[in-house]
């Protein structure tokens, strides 16, 4: 097995060991056994840096299901390496942090680390796979591990709710994405992403469906509007999990997918504008909502959604590089660069902020900003980290957030030239940035400034232990370090990743010139940042005054309401479906049988276009025959509408005798005789039972009920007539009765053909018929006896 695969599967293998380690070594926190793996993997992936810097991709293949051509193709280029480093790097810090966050003895640590390793392996699989199906498999595994981690404190209702919500939404998206993958593979003839990039696909009819289906997957996973609703509820997970999955890595899988498939899809402007607009709407709406939240984690959740929207919109705009490279090949490349850079920066500052929230929660017992305040002096280190993270998030210099935010503005400003309406892009981006500034400020000020309120806190607040602080400090240092010397990343990480996203636009020899600096002169971007600062402060000052705006939005309008309601609808729908279909009443089943019979028969008749209609054999009509027919119809109608039983029974008898007359007319003497006898006995029997049976219920059924029955019965009648007509008019086969005509006398020595057929040619059938009668008689006898037996018991 190639080493890359070993690295990819290593977390799974360790996950198998963890339960045993947890069970047998109780003295040491099990996290310490887990910690070395992400560190080792991080170092291992660092070793690929050199190849990637040279724009050399490394790939390896391991067959999985050869018969279906499914294999684990691993491909390491700038993009996947960046993600692999994030996953293992942040992963190491999160594991370290969790060792202090989750206490030994109190929690089910074994489970926690199994899930976490499961996630780490799955996420590595997503970013390293070059095969669509294996990518999908790992993708769904991340959803499952996320589900398990959110439900980690499973005794809480909110945890279970959040877990189910995230699973249903992301898995639904995942399944649609699978459909998209399959469509893409049909269009391109391969599941290998690399090969797909070299296949022209745009003309294929499945191209656009595939595009949208895949975007469904990406948008649900990366919590884009309108699917973002699962992410705030996912915050019920332990904070290290939120920091890791729901801000730094898993939610970026969608972004990864968009970036990865950009070379395939970006030639289509549908792709570009769908992504850019969805991203911008998400950015704006979520940053607006984030300012309203009172739970620190909720603020960060909405902030994550909005930042993801930012990155997504950048990738969308970046796709324009494939359209307009003739203007100047670097115009839209800056968008891709900004996306990659911001993705990295976001992982650092948001990771540190989540850990800060974890610390605050851990040390004060609450995350509610209405109870917090004045922690600056009590928790100075935490405060410093929070300040650095927030300023970076708000996009202020000298932190790394500022650099990528500037690039974001540049990209949006460039995009406005594409079309006349595109002017809204930079405006929306700017407004969203003001709200970003606002919630960043609220986050810090409400927690650390103001008055310390010890009486509403569950615990006496104090600074966190050093072990818990290491991870956020490392991330905060990174924020500052990248802020000051951003160009350490440019050649080693950013340029190769941009090269991977814009695969095919450049050759490796055309070295990408990535240079990031703080100062570009007095550009529009700078003024936009200053504007953000000013308006942000203004909004912050006046926040209590305009806060009411949020209450204008009714709960019933929200997407969450829609989600919850859809369960109610589904439940209700399933119930009414069940009660309608499985009534247990024979009548309902009869209706199904009749309707499906009619539908099927008519469909089959309609499907067959050709009929040989031959009406030459029609027999003549006499007046008395018409009279008889009218009499039958009239008697039949009487049975239906009769109010009294007697009328119904008598008219049924009338129908029977009329039928017997018809038998006479149609040269069937035996039938006429039998019919007369049977009809007489039947009527007698009816009248006998009539004495015992209750009167017709006088209760009128509803008109709808009768009408429905009437429609169905008329349909059945018409169908039967049509079939009868077709069967009569279109003769397909010769009658087989000639045999009987010829042989009745020779073989059976009888002259009445009907009788001979019954007792001789088909004698066994008649025997069985007698058996049926005997069984019926036995049944009747048994029923009558049954009563007697019971009466005796009494």
């Amino acid at each position, binding site marked *: 097995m190639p080493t890359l695969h070993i690295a990819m599967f290593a977390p799974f293998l360790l996950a198998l060991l963890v339960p045993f380690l947890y069970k047998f070594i109780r003295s040491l926190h099990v996290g310490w056994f887990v910690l070395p793996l992400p560190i080792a993997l991080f170092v291992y992936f660092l070793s690929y840096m050199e190849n990637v810097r040279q724009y050399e991709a490394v790939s390896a293949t391991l067959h999985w299901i050869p018969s279906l051509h499914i294999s684990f193709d691993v491909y390491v280029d700038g993009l996947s390496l960046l993600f692999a480093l994030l996953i293992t790097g942040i992963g190491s810090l999160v594991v370290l942090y969790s060792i202090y966050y989750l206490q030994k003895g109190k929690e089910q640590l074994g489970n926690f680390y199994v899930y976490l390793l499961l996630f780490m392996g799955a996420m590595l699989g997503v970013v390293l796979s070059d095969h669509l199906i294996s990518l999908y498999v790992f993708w769904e595994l991340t959803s499952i591990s996320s589900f398990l981690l959110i439900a980690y404190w499973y005794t809480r209702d909110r945890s279970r709710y959040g877990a189910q919500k995230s699973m249903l939404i992301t898995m639904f998206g995942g399944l649609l994405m699978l459909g998209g993958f399959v469509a893409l593979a049909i269009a391109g003839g391969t599941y290998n992403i690399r090969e797909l990039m070299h296949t022209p696909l745009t003309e294929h009819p499945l191209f656009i469906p595939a595009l949208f289906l895949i975007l469904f997957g990406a948008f649900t996973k990366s919590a884009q509007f309108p699917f973002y609703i699962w992410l705030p509820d996912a915050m019920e997970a332990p904070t290290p999990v939120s920091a890791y999955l729901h801000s730094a890595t898993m939610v970026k899988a969608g972004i990864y997918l968009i970036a990865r498939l950009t070379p395939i899809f970006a030639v289509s402007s549908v792709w570009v504008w769908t992504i850019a607009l969805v991203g911008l709407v998400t950015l704006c709406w979520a940053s607006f909502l984030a300012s309203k939240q009172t739970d620190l984690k909720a603020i960060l959740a909405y902030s994550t959604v909005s930042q993801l929207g930012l990155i997504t919109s950048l990738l969308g705009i970046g796709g324009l590089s494939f359209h307009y490279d003739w203007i100047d090949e670097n115009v839209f490349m800056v968008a891709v660069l900004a996306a990659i850079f911001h993705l990295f920066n976001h992982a650092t500052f948001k990771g540190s902020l989540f850990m800060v929230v974890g610390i605050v929660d851990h040390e004060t017992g609450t995350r509610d900003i209405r109870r917090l305040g004045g922690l600056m002096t009590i928790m100075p280190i935490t405060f410093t980290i929070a300040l650095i993270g927030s300023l970076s998030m708000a996009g202020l210099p000298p932190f790394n957030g500022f650099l990528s935010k500037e690039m974001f503005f540049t990209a949006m400003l460039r995009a406005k030239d594409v079309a006349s309406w595109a002017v809204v892009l930079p405006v929306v981006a700017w407004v969203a940035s003001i709200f970003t500034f606002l919630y960043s400020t609220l986050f810090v000020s409400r927690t650390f400034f103001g008055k310390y309120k010890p009486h509403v806190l569950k615990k006496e607040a104090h600074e966190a232990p050093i072990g818990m602080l290491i991870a956020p400090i490392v991330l905060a240092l990174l924020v500052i370090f990248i802020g000051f010397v951003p160009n350490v990343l440019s050649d080693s990480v950013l340029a190769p990743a941009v090269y991977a996203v814009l695969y095919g636009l450049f050759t490796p020899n055309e070295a990408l010139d990535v240079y990031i600096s703080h100062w570009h002169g007095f550009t529009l971007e700078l003024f936009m940042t200053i504007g953000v600062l000013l308006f942000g402060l203004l909004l912050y000052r006046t926040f209590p005054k305009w806060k009411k705006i949020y209450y204008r939005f009714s709960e019933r309008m929200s997407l969450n309401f829609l989600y919850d309601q859809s369960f109610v609808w589904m439940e209700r729908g399933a119930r009414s479906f069940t009660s309608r279909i499985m009534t*247990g*009443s*024979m*009548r309902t089943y009869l*209706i199904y049988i*009749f309707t499906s019979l009619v539908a099927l028969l008519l469909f089959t008749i309609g499907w067959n276009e050709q009929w040989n209609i031959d009406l030459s054999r029609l*027999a*003549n*009509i006499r007046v008395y*025959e*018409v009279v008889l*027919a009218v009499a039958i*119809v009239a008697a039949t109608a009487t*049975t*239906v509408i009769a109010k009294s*039983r007697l009328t*119904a029974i008598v008219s*049924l008898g009338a*129908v*029977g005798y009329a039928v017997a007359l*018809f038998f006479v*007319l*149609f*040269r*069937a*003497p*035996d*039938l006429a005789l039998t019919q007369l006898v*049977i009809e007489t*006995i*039947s009527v007698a029997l009816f009248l006998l*039972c009539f004495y*015992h*049976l209750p009167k*017709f*219920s006088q209760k009128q059924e509803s008109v709808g009920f009768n009408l429905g*029955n009437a429609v*169905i019965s008329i349909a*059945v*009648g*018409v169908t039967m*007539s049509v079939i*009868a*007509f077709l069967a*009569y008019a279109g003769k397909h086969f010769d009658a087989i*009765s000639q045999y*009987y*005509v010829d042989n*009745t006398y020779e073989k059976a020595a009888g002259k*009445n*053909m009907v009788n001979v*057929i*019954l007792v001789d040619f088909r004698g066994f*059938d008649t025997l069985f*018929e007698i058996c049926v009668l005997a069984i*019926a*008689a036995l049944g*009747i006898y048994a*029923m*009558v006896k049954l009563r007697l037996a019971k009466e005796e018991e009494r």
Partner: protein
Amino acid sequence: MELLMIVVIGCLFTAATYLLLSKSLLRIIIGTGLLSHGAHLLLLTMGGLKVGAPPLLGEKAARYVDPLPQALILTAIVISFGVTAFFLVLAYRSYQEIGTDHMEGMKGDE
């Protein structure tokens, strides 16, 4: 003639279906009765009407009507009588035991 019979058959089937879908047991039994009449006439009509002498070799006719549908119908008449009788006794007995001939009232609990 056949066309007229086809219409009559359609009417019989319509009425029979309507009665089968009602909720009173007696009506349902009457419905089955009508249904069998309809089926018998259908079979006979399909064989062709009045195209020859009755199927008795003694007639010495050149053509006879198709004897096979008649044999089938004869069987069917007898069987349908058996079924009707069984149904009637069933209805009578169940009315005595349960006290209703209404279909909805006979439904057990879920």
